[in-house]
């Protein structure tokens, strides 16, 4: 039945234009809310007998208590230990014994758990994920061993990587008062003190159905998902005392910050700058859409403004680029970077980058380039239908930071409707040096020793 409907839909889609294709993509998405407040998103694709089951919690590192940095991620690790009914490690063993893969990830604003498995195993995945939402039961020994694991993870991801250490310092300088200045994995000295009470405190505050979003994608039927979700998740009571998600806000940023991170392991020096920037807000996404297009126009690829000026024309750079991530609960950043060509100092590179940014504000947006970018965005909606798991992740992340299903579905049209004037206005607003951090990643200055 499902397969037939898929085949008919396929025929209709193949003759559809871009506009109707976008509508069709939304048609594959069904959303509803369980009585206990848990939101559910279903993205159907019946081409292969596979399902991805994801549970997102609106709780990330920026929700941690002061002094326990890393506890959101630590708890994510501990959720693979025992529950009241499953032994230590049994969760993943059952997923594997069913041919599936499971994992989890933590960010500033969310923690998500997922399994990818044959479609007829969805009920089992829900049953186990619902179980560990409220019935986690790890030992003190688990806590001690897993703390060593996350410290090794920090060693691997951060302490072995000068670029990551530099990024950590950049973020810490960017945020004067907001938790985005603290690394997701945590500061080492605080990670070393994390204990059972820290983990359970975070768990008992946030791991409830009214703080979770279920996202299921693949060879499923929305009604079937609803029935399974009601059976497994619908019976878990909501937390009436779920705290409101209010974090310490940034004061006005009025002073440009500069830092130099020196590390003998640096192979390639570069200059990075981040500017405090607005994020996508529910019902108000135009500024973020303009910044998304600005990042593309300015430094998004081979034909971008920065690449043209810095790599092809002045040849001051081996690489340059601009980056913006709009899916965030609170203020995010707009970033630019320049990797200098051989013989070009960091100072010269920074000057060249700044001259390019100033000149961009004079030259404005190339209309043909913007048309190409918008065409690529329309095409990306077609390509996206080949990867529904990615569509699912997009919904999970957006809903975790307070955006709505309507916001997600309106986003492609908003991007198409953004004008060059809006992009330039966004550029003038965001490129504010007083709200910026400029960092140099470099090697130790050996000349200082002789001075």
């Amino acid at each position, binding site marked *: 039945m499902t397969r037939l409907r898929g085949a008919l839909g396929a025929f209709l889609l193949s003759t559809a234009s871009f506009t109707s294709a976008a509508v069709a993509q939304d048609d594959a998405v069904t959303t509803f809310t369980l009585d206990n407040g848990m939101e559910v998103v279903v993205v159907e694709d019946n081409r*292969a007998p596979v399902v991805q089951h994801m549970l997102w919690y609106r709780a990330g590192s920026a929700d941690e208590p002061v002094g326990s940095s890393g506890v959101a991620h630590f708890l994510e690790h501990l959720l693979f230990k025992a529950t009241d009914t499953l032994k230590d490690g049994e969760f993943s063993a059952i997923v*594997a014994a069913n041919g599936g893969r499971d994992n989890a990830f933590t960010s500033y604003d969310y923690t998500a758990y997922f399994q*990818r498995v044959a479609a007829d195993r969805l*009920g*089992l995945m829900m049953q186990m994920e619902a179980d560990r939402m409220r019935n986690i039961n790890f030992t003190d020994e688990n806590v001690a061993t897993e703390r060593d694991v996350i410290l090794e993870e920090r060693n*691997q991801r951060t302490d072995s990587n000068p670029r990551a250490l530099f990024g950590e310092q950049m973020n810490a300088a960017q945020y004067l008062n907001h938790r985005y200045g603290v690394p997701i994995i945590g500061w080492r000295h605080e990670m070393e003190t994390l204990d059972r009470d820290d983990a359970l405190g975070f768990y008992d505050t946030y791991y409830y159905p009214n703080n979770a979003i279920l996202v299921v994608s*693949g060879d499923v039927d929305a009604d079937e998902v609803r029935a399974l979700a009601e059976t497994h998740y619908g019976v878990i009571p909501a937390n009436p005392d779920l705290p409101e998600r209010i974090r310490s806000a940034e004061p006005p940023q009025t002073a440009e910050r500069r830092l130099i991170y020196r590390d003998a392991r640096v192979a390639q020096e570069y200059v990075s700058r981040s500017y405090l920037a607005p994020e996508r807000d529910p019902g108000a996404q135009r500024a973020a859409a303009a910044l998304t297009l600005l990042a593309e126009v300015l430094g998004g690829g081979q*034909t971008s403004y920065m690449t043209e000026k810095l790599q092809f024309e002045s040849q001051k750079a081996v690489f340059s680029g601009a980056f913006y991530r709009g899916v965030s609960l609170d203020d995010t950043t707009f970033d630019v970077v320049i990797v200098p060509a051989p013989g070009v100092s960091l100072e010269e590179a920074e000057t060249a980058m700044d001259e390019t940014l100033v000149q961009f504000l004079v030259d404005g947006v190339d209309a043909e380039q913007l048309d190409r970018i918008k*065409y690529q965005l329309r095409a990306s909606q077609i390509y996206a239908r080949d990867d529904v798991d990615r569509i699912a992740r997009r919904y999970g992340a957006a809903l975790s930071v307070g955006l709505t299903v309507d916001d997600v579905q309106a986003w492609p049209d908003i991007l198409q409707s953004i004008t060059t004037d809006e992009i330039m206005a966004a550029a003038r607003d965001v490129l504010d040096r007083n709200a910026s951090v400029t960092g140099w990643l470099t090697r130790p200055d050996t000349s200082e020793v002789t001075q």
Partner: protein
Amino acid sequence: MTRLAVALILSFLASLPARAEVQIQEVVSPGGITAWLVQEPSIPFTALELRFRGGASLDDPDTRGAINLMTGLLEEGAADLDARAFARTLEGLAASLDYDVGPDSLSVSARFLTENRDEAVALLRASLIEPRFDQDAIDRVREQVLTGLRSDAKDPGKIARETFNKMAFGDHPYGSNYRGTLESVAALTRDDIVAAHGKVLARDRLYVGAVGDITPDELGVLLDNLLGALPETGAPQPGPADVTITGGYTVVDFNTPQSVAIFGQLGVEQDDPDFFAARVLNQILGAGGFESRLMTEVREKRGLTYGVYSFLLPRDHAATLQGQVASANDRVAEAVSVIRDEWARAATEGVTPDELTAAKTFVTGAYPLQFSGNGRIAGIMVGMQMLGLPIDYIATRNEKVDAVTLEDVNRVAAELLTPDALHFVVVGQPEGLETTEPNEG
């Protein structure tokens, strides 16, 4: 509580996950080019995967890195389009053309909309048949490659990889970095790049997979148009590599808090009758997510690492069994010792029936999950052709896994796993580990 237990039992008794329903057809173009095709008209685009056997291993030793640099230049201007015009044209078509190269093949992964397929294929054709290799593009991309090589020289994982390959494969192309060295890349000329192009891009080593909104007839015409002008032959393949590594330790001093270790020994060829037994064995030993013995012993029980893995690496010209782990300098010796013990335990004691059942269920159950996404399926089909597998292989592969017995796995474990021949390359400042002399192993 009861509900959970009952459902778990049911899940183990239930039939195996559905078989991948991938309908592959062989298409031979009017000009004689063979491709495997899966028609998938529900989304108006096509994924096309091309692979040229040999890849960067066809480099001459004195121009090491030429094929890698040449590959990077395929998107940097073709026919009458310079690099910037090429990039603008590609963006304007909303297509993607990815060129990549490795020790066994040069691959081209293309994705284009049905509505402008002809223009996209024309652009791809130009990049393969008429690349410009302009001097300014060569110099620009060369600098990007050199930047990468300088970074690799300070990356403990990359240092370990390069050191291990040199010891394992010696003077064979597998023994050196296919991206070249700072010296060899700096010395490459435009003539070297043109020669590199002629070595790799030829019809006698070409494999094609296509998935998407295209008919067999349309694909046939497309292939002749796209690839018909390629030369018939290129450079000879390099021939088998002797795996020369022996047991022991090699420590490379590098000032960093966490050591990275790459370890390995001889492996099993993909066409070996014992390959599936080895595949299942490795699943139990170190390939599993959280369930493998290495992960359980090194991470879950002792917290010595964030990740430890082993993997079979059956390349065209040499088969090895390798693994990787990273641990703090003061703990890596213990991690290495536990890994060596697990190697020995599997060799002498074999695996349990429960482990075998779980591993086979995973390996068979995970297989159909790979076949999602047009690009991924196109890539898998090209891989199958390069291994000489039959077109109906997907339907029969899980039977080969299911046929593996406990006896097979334990025999292969005893024959294959040689703890004394396992060599560890450790990059960092590991406490309690020192380089051994070759004959100490």
